C-alpha cells in the first residue's frame, strides 16, 4: 500500500512514519506513539490500534498475538476538565503539591543545614 496512507486519523500519521519508528527500534504501539504521536489524538488509538499492530507484525515478522495493545488510559473518552473537577466535594486528602509551597519548604530546610 501507498506509504503515505494515513493510519492514525487524529494525528494524521502515515505508514512510512510508523515503519521508520520500527526501523529505529520501536517494538510496541507505545514506543511508536512516543516517537510519532500516532494514537495520541482525541480517539486515543481506539481506531488505529489494530492497523498499527498489523504494521508492526508485518514489518517485524511477529505474530499479531505477540503485539500488545497500547496502554489504554483514563479517561475512557474525552471529558471536559470542568466535568472532571465537579462531583467530588471532599478533596481534603489532596496529593497535589504546589511548586511555590515546595520551594519555600526546601528553602527552610536549607537554613538548618550548613552546606
Amino acid at each position: 500500500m501507498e506509504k503515505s496512507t494515513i493510519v492514525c486519523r487524529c494525528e494524521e500519521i502515515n505508514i512510512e512514519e510508523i515503519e521508520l519508528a520500527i526501523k529505529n527500534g520501536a517494538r510496541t504501539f507505545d514506543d511508536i506513539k512516543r516517537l510519532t504521536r500516532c494514537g495520541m489524538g482525541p480517539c486515543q488509538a481506539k481506531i488505529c490500534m489494530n492497523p498499527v499492530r498489523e504494521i508492526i507484525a508485518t514489518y517485524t515478522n511477529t505474530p499479531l498475538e505477540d503485539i500488545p495493545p497500547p496502554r489504554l488510559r483514563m479517561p475512557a473518552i474525552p471529558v471536559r476538565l470542568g466535568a472532571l473537577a465537579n462531583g467530588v466535594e471532599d478533596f481534603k486528602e489532596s496529593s497535589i503539591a504546589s511548586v511555590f509551597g515546595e520551594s519555600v519548604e526546601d528553602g527552610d530546610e536549607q537554613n538548618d543545614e550548613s552546606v
Partner: protein
Amino acid sequence: MVMNKMTKVFDCIIIGSGVVGSSIAYHLSERKKYEILLIDKSYPLSGTSGSTQAWVWVHSKTPNWYGELSMYSAELYAYLEKKIGDFEYKRTGGIAPFYNEGDRDKALKLAEEQGKVGIKIDVLTRDEVLEKEPAVSPKIAGATFSKWDGNLNPFRLVELYIRAAKKNGVQCSFYNRVTSIKKVRGIFHVETEQGVFQGNNVILAGGPWSKELGKMLGVYIPVRQVRGQILITEPLKPFLKYTIGGVRQTDNGEVLIGYSKEEVGYDRRTTLDVMQQTARMAIDLVPALAKANIVRAFSGIRVIPEDGLPIFGEIPGIKGAYIAVMHSGITLSAIVGTLMTELLIDGETSLDISRYSLKRFSNLPNRKI
C-alpha cells in the same frame, strides 16, 4: 569469568537511556572517540522521561546553588538545540502563584536568596500576574516570576540525544535488562538478558530504578519513587504564554496539567481521585480550562533523592563506577551530561560537583560500600 580476547571492552557502559543517560551518552560521544554502550531494559521514553510535564524549571530550586546549577542547564539548552536539533525548548518565563498574601514574605526571601547567584526573581502582585497571563485566575494573591524558566518536548529531546549519539558511534541495546554488574580485574562485566558486556567505566542512570542498579554494585542509592499524575487536554489554540507552576501549554497546543505526589512504588496507574483533584487545581488556577477536553491521563514514577538534591559523580569506593540520578532530569540533563563528560574524560569538572556526590549520604544507616 575468563576474558575472551575477542570480547570488546567498552570505554563506558551507560545503564538507562532516559534523559540523563542519553544526555551523558551524547555529550561523551561528542567530546571523544569513545566506545560507548547505552543499555535500557525497555525503549527510550517508556519510563520517567516520557511521562513528565517537561519544565526546565530554575527559579524556585533551592538551596540557591542548586538553582544555579539549573540555571546553567537552562543556558546550555539554547546552545544544545543548535547542535542536535529542535526539541521545542522555549524559555517562556515561569510563574509560581501563591494564594495567600501571607506568602509574599516567603516569596521575597526566595527572591533575595536566588538573586545572590544571579537568578532574578520578581515578586508580582495579582494584577501584575494577570497582566502577564490573563488566563490566570484572579483568585491568586501573587506569584514569583523568573525569565529563566521554560519547557521543552521530552520526546524530541531524548530522541535527538540518542540520534546524535548514534551518529557519533554510540551503540544502543534496548529491550535488554541488566541482571548483574561485576567488577573483575578492573573491568565491569555487565550481565544482561542478551549477554555480557564489558566496560572500563559504568554509569548508573536508571532514574527510579537506580536503587536496584546500585544493589548490583553493593551500593545503597538513597532515592524514593514518587508517582506523579498528569492530565493532558486536546490541542487548544495558544493561550498560555508562560510556564505556570502546575500548568503549561505545549507547542502543539495541548495543556499539561499536574503536580501530584504519591509514594506507591512502581505502580504507574492513574486514579480518578488524583485526576479530579488535579482538575480542580487547574480550574482554580486557569478557569478557562474548564471547557477543554481531557483526552489522556498518564503517570510517571519520579525519582527523588532523600534530600531532594541531585546525586551525580563517581561512586565513592568503586573506581570507574559513576551515578547520575536526580528528580529534575529534564531541567538538568544538559549540565549533568556536560559535567559527567568532563569528569570521565578530564578527571576534573569546570564546576565543583562535590556537594552532589553520593558521599554526602555516608552516615545513612543502610549505606554500605
